[in-house]
């Protein structure tokens, strides 16, 4: 017995010992020289794989495309370090010939790979030709479809010959999250089969090189290059952190805990509640906005996407009725606790878009009318953004801005006023009948809609979905949510849904051009029911007017103001047709802890880039970061 008791005591002692045992977060890397960033990809299954160009390669946002890869141009979703447009590997903007069949790229001299080889047009030619000659590389398809040939007149010039006119071809090499990165010719040409080559360790074109990584894929640590001056960001200054660690930070609550213990400098995304908790309890944690709503509005428009091939939803009246049932204030509360930037129109209310679209179109929206069959109503309520702000002021107090433009920036402008009467009229016009408290379809069956949501993957969207479902249910529609965790992309592509909370509208953010998503909305790409739908026309909706708009956009230059006008035509069209119900910007609760580093981007004083750390564009953040206390 005694021996047993002793054994137990010893065990406890050992445990306590472990507990007490102080341990650095990262071994042999000084914390104060290291930036620790959450990689939302989580655990990378094939950690030792850095060949980004092979489809299904390992991680992308493990630091690889933020710190080690580079290409011609970057468009910043916000203001940019030095303007929205940045010539990175290219020294000038894209140079098209007048009929958009030839693109000339001038390269920046004096840029070197981390192994000391200079980056030249030879690498460009190799990258492009490899994609032309190999199938199943990440960018094989677009290259093979567009490029007739490529040539390098000199060391710093590359000329693309295009198969057909394309004024947006340079988009392929313009980083918005990512773009077609350059391959190191001198490595890959020795590698044999490009698809089977792991590219480990990666040779870097960015200011950092790989220091070490976890074979189980939970962390990747990058180290600043000695010769960082010979990379493109050097134009903006020296990167602050000597080391950058991209880690799998676990589920939302663990991320919050980690940052409270100052073990995670940047949380990629957490729940609103997590954000508020950090704002309350962690003095040095901050979001994109200093106060409420904190989150960064990505140039991504979260919407209720209908499957327009669904017989019941083909009718515009039904779609509009469903829109008029939604109380966006409740949705904003349920999903973001009010920290949402709402948008009534088919463009995200972020970056430069409010200037180019929301504000100019306000007047049109106020006069915009919907015919319910019995009467005409003006559904637009310009005060909803303000109403949300007001409803939050009692609880959030001074954090809530009061200047109208700030309110508009944070919460958005107007949205559709809930109008159950009008909704009922529209439903009836569409031939639906109300039996008791239940809407019946024209052929007399109960009207059921399943809203597909992503579940844990995107808590906020899941919450929005269940709120919309609730409101429809209360209107008498048999609506419920379906969690398609992991399979969401699949089902979205397959059109295997009635309605889905997702986004079919993504933009540059920093540039008014809409082709980034709009081009793929052309009817030519719509898949048969049941056949997989290519991105991003998930709603499988087509309209002759839309096709006309798209075709026109294809023929005007990237920066041509005419593009914006056409964009507004698109906005009017989708407002009338309501193929998807735009809800709000995808606001990302990126939380930055200033215990070790300062100079993070923010809305008020430094909107120089998107803080959301899985964007390739966040490489610009490194040059702005400064250690808080020089140790």
């Amino acid at each position: 017995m005694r021996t047993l008791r002793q054994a137990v005591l010893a065990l406890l002692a050992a445990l306590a010992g472990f507990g007490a045992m102080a341990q650095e977060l990262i071994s042999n890397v000084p914390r104060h020289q290291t930036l620790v960033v959450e990689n939302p990809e989580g655990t990378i299954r094939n950690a030792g794989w850095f060949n980004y160009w092979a489809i299904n390669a390992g991680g992308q946002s493990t630091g690889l495309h933020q710190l080690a890869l580079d290409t011609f141009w970057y468009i910043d979703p916000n203001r940019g370090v030095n303007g929205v447009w940045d010539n990175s590997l290219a020294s000038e903007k894209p140079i098209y010939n007048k009929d958009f069949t030839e693109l000339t790229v001038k390269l920046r001299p004096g840029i070197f790979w981390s192994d000391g080889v200079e980056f030249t047009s030879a690498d460009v030619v190799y990258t492009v030709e490899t994609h032309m000659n190999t199938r199943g590389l990440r960018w094989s398809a677009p290259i093979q479809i567009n490029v007739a040939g490529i040539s390098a007149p000199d060391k710093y010039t590359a000329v693309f010959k295009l198969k057909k006119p394309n004024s947006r071809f340079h988009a392929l090499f313009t980083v918005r999250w990512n773009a077609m990165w350059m391959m190191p010719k001198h490595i890959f040409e020795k590698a044999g089969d490009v698809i089977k080559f792991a590219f480990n360790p990666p040779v870097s074109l960015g200011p950092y090189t790989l220091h070490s990584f976890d074979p189980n894929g939970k962390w990747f640590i990058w180290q600043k290059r000695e010769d960082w001056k010979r990379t493109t960001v050097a134009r903006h200054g020296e990167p602050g952190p000597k080391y950058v660690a991209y880690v799998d930070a676990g589920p939302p609550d663990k991320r919050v805990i980690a940052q409270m213990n100052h073990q995670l400098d940047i949380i990629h995304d957490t729940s609103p509640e997590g954000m508020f908790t950090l704002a309350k309890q962690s003095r040095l944690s901050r979001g994109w906005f200093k106060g409420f709503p904190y989150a960064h509005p990505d140039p991504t428009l979260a919407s209720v996407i209908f499957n327009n091939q669904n017989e019941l939803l083909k009718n515009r009246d039904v779609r509009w009725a469903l829109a008029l049932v939604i109380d966006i204030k409740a949705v904003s509360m349920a999903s973001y606790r009010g920290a949402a930037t709402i948008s009534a129109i088919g463009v995200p209310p972020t970056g430069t878009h409010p200037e180019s679209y929301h504000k100019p179109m306000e007047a049109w929206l106020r006069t915009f009318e919907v015919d319910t069959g019995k009467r005409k109503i003006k559904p637009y309520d310009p005060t909803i953004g303000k109403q949300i702000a007001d409803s939050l002021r009692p609880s959030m107090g001074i954090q809530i801005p009061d200047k109208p433009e700030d309110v508009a920036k944070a919460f958005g402008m107007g949205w559709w006023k809930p109008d159950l009467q009008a909704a009922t009229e529209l439903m009836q016009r569409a031939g639906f009948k109300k039996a008791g408290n239940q809407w019946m379809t024209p052929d007399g069956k109960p009207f059921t809609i399943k809203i597909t949501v992503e579940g844990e993957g995107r808590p906020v969207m899941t919450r929005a979905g269940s709120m919309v479902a609730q409101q429809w249910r209360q209107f008498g529609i048999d609506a419920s949510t379906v969690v398609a965790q992991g399979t969401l992309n699949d089902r979205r592509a397959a059109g295997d849904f009635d309605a889905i909370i997702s986004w079919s509208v993504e933009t540059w953010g920093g540039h008014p051009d809409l082709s980034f998503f709009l081009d793929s909305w052309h009817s030519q790409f719509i898949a048969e029911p049941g056949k997989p739908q290519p991105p991003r026309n998930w709603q499988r909706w087509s309209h002759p007017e839309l096709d006309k708009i798209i075709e026109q956009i294809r023929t005007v230059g990237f920066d041509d103001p005419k593009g914006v006008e056409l964009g507004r035509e698109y906005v009017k069209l989708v407002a009338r047709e309501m193929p998807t119900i735009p809800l709000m910007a995808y606001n990302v609760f990126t939380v930055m802890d200033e215990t070790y580093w300062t100079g993070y981007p923010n809305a008020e004083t430094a909107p120089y880039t998107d803080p959301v750390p899985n964007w390739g564009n966040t490489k610009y953040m490194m040059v702005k970061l400064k250690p808080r206390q020089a140790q």
Partner: protein
Amino acid sequence: MWTVLRDLLRHNREFAAGVCLLGIVGLIAALSALSPYSPLDSYVVPPDLPPGLPYVLGTTSRGQDVFWMLTFAIRNTLLFGFIVALISRLLALLIGLVAGYAGGWIDRALMSLNDTFIVIPLFPILVLFYFVMRDRMSWASLALVMACLGWAYDARLIRSVALSLRTREFTETGIFSGMSMRQILTQEHLPFVLPIVFSTTMNNINWSIGLEVTLSVLGFTDINTPTIGSMIYWANQHTAMVAGIWWWVAFPVVLVVITFVGLFLLAISMNEFIDPRSRLGRGMQ
């Protein structure tokens, strides 16, 4: 039987405690009938209120009253457990009795099948099922699947009893008096194994509830049906723990733990009553 229960209640502390605990749980579940709110609706009460009045156990970040949510959650969770237990009992009884009675190759065949199901790690398979059935993976179908996987352990116990019954003379006389196998099993053997069935039921309910909670917390079930698991799931969606909304997680956990302990106490007290040697259905977690 009733006198036995009464005596147990009077003189067996575990049994009494178990009955009390389950009584509480059952009462809470029953209250769901009186709930002023639909379990599906959110934002019916002000969110994030700590326990107190008028919301006894506080409110969730989804603006739901924790207490009333809890009544629905525990009701569904218990119901789930019972359904699984019921179906799997039938399977276990059938296979156990037949194997024990028939003996020979039938016994051997059934038992190796049985051992297979005991050994195979079920969790991966359940996860796989979820990914086949997706939104058809309703609460009911999950119950069915789990019932089909959860009978093996108890079939073994029942079979061992049936095996001993087989050699008793009343079985012999039954056979000589020309009773059919079905008659013998249902009329002669069933009464003997029923007590065991009862106690294994408790363990089986524990097991199924445990897995249901785990699966739905991981989001691998239908999250519209309020269960203890889906309650915790939604709490995690709102990072309730770190946000300090502890009552959203704590109360479901406490309640489900009470349920587990209650069922478990019943099981072991029954066990001691039936057969001090029996193995307490261990491993059923």
